[in-house]
């Protein structure tokens, strides 16, 4: 447990076209709720989630955003300082996958390679109406250094895995980052892009040893 005992704070942003299920993914993950009749998201909001991954405590702030393109005019404030981005498309909607590609370009341009990108095909419960090929989506993700996931917020599929995997990657990035800036500095405080790595007392492992929400 000596290697653990640290806590990380990460900001994750959900982006993607309207109606692909961004809000549903966050609600399912943070509150284990699903509501197929919720209203259009117009104002960004965020929910938080605490995890314990192998003794490392992670505080996630997950930002949900409005999908309609013109709301992007309200600024890049939502993804600025993000450690991870979840780019969501609807597997039944080819256009929404094209929008993901635009987001990849914009994020890479604005934030470089530091941000952990996830591309998420949501609504796999509607597999019969699929319009985006699995192979194409996975190949595209690989080509831009993103990881691809398949989820259904409705059936609660793939969502825990998505966030857990993303957290592990963000921890890794943060640690690489920290090492690059000199091993000795244990009090890293606020690292670049707002990652906070704070040494603290080793914590008793939770029984599962994996992650626990709070």
């Amino acid at each position: 447990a000596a290697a653990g005992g640290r806590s990380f704070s990460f900001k994750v942003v959900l982006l993607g076209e309207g109606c692909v299920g961004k809000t549903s993914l966050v609600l399912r993950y943070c509150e284990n709720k699903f509501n197929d009749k919720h209203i259009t998201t117009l104002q960004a909001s965020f929910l938080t989630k605490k995890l314990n991954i192998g003794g490392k405590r992670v505080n996630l702030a997950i930002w949900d955003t409005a999908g309609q393109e013109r709301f992007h005019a309200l600024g890049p404030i939502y993804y600025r300082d993000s450690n991870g981005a979840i780019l969501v498309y609807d597997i039944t909607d080819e256009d929404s996958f094209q929008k993901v590609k635009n987001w990849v370009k914009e994020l890479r341009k604005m934030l470089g390679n530091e941000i952990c990108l996830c591309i998420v095909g949501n609504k796999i419960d509607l597999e019969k109406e699929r319009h985006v090929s699995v192979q194409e989506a996975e190949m595209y993700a690989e080509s831009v250094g993103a990881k691809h996931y398949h989820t259904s917020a409705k059936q609660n599929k793939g969502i825990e895995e998505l966030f857990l995997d993303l957290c592990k990657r963000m921890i890794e990035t943060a640690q690489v980052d920290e090492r690059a800036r000199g091993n000795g500095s244990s009090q890293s405080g606020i690292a670049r892009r707002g990652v906070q790595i704070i040494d603290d007392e080793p914590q008793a492992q939770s029984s599962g040893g994996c992650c626990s929400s709070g």
Partner: protein
Amino acid sequence: FCRVDPYGFERPEDFDYASYEAFFSRYLVVLTRRAIKWSKLLKGKNNIQKSLKGELLRKGEEHCQLLWLSVRGALLGHIQTAGSSGLWPTRTAEGRTEGVKCVVILPQNMNRTFPDNVKFRKTADPCLQHTLYNVLVAYGHHNKAVGYCQGMNFIAGYLILITKNEEESFWLLDALIGRILPDYYSPAMLGLKTDQEVLGELVKMKVPAVAELMERHGVMWTLVVSRWFICLFIDILPVETVLRIWDCLFYEGSKIIFRVALTLIKQNQAFILEATNFPDICDKFKQITKGTFVTECHSFMQKIFTDPGSLSMATINKLRETCREKLLSQG
């Protein structure tokens, strides 16, 4: 009181029927008294003195419909003198949607407009989704620069619930978007961005401790208030309160939005200042739109004209100008 309110909205599970009933029985007296005054006034034909009418609206005489009809009258006059045909555009558009910005997202937005309202259900008869769709498509043709922007669905939806008339809803929507609100919904959303900053400046002047808190924690105004502007308080404040605000909005213009926002912030200053971090602050801004203070719409409307103190259109225009320039220079 039943599970569904008079406008068709389902009441939440935890709805406090007892205190709502207490409020409503008091409010009914106010409404009745004012309705009598209004009917006298409207019988006086066209010679309603402007100042007197404004005064009555503030007091909420004429709850909604009558008032809006008279506003619409003025509006139709305005449209005709402006040389527009004044034709109800669905007739000319024949339901065509090509060439209308963003109209493709309209169908999927229908189920996401007031899912908690029984009249907007797909299964409702008549189903207001059709009316809503017609109004928004027609508006997209009418105002090509704006097309369709999310948020307009809620506003049009409210207008339909109140007027129960497609064409009137269209003209009132046009009055709001084309005349009363400054450029909130066009693709660049410059008017909205500007007004959020203007509110920030007004808070600096009138409730400086809150402005200082926001700045200290790096909370941008857009994160907590953009929906106040985009939806004109729909789904944020109780229906009755929103309607009273809209009464004044149609008559006195967009500065009413600032009065409401400032009142909410000022009244809850101590509560907001309890926040010690970023998430806390966002949460407080959600909390202040709930509770007795906002449900008691009659006293709330009195407060918005006294609490924030003087607020001249000249001040707002000046702030709008400087904020807009600042935004444009930031690119």
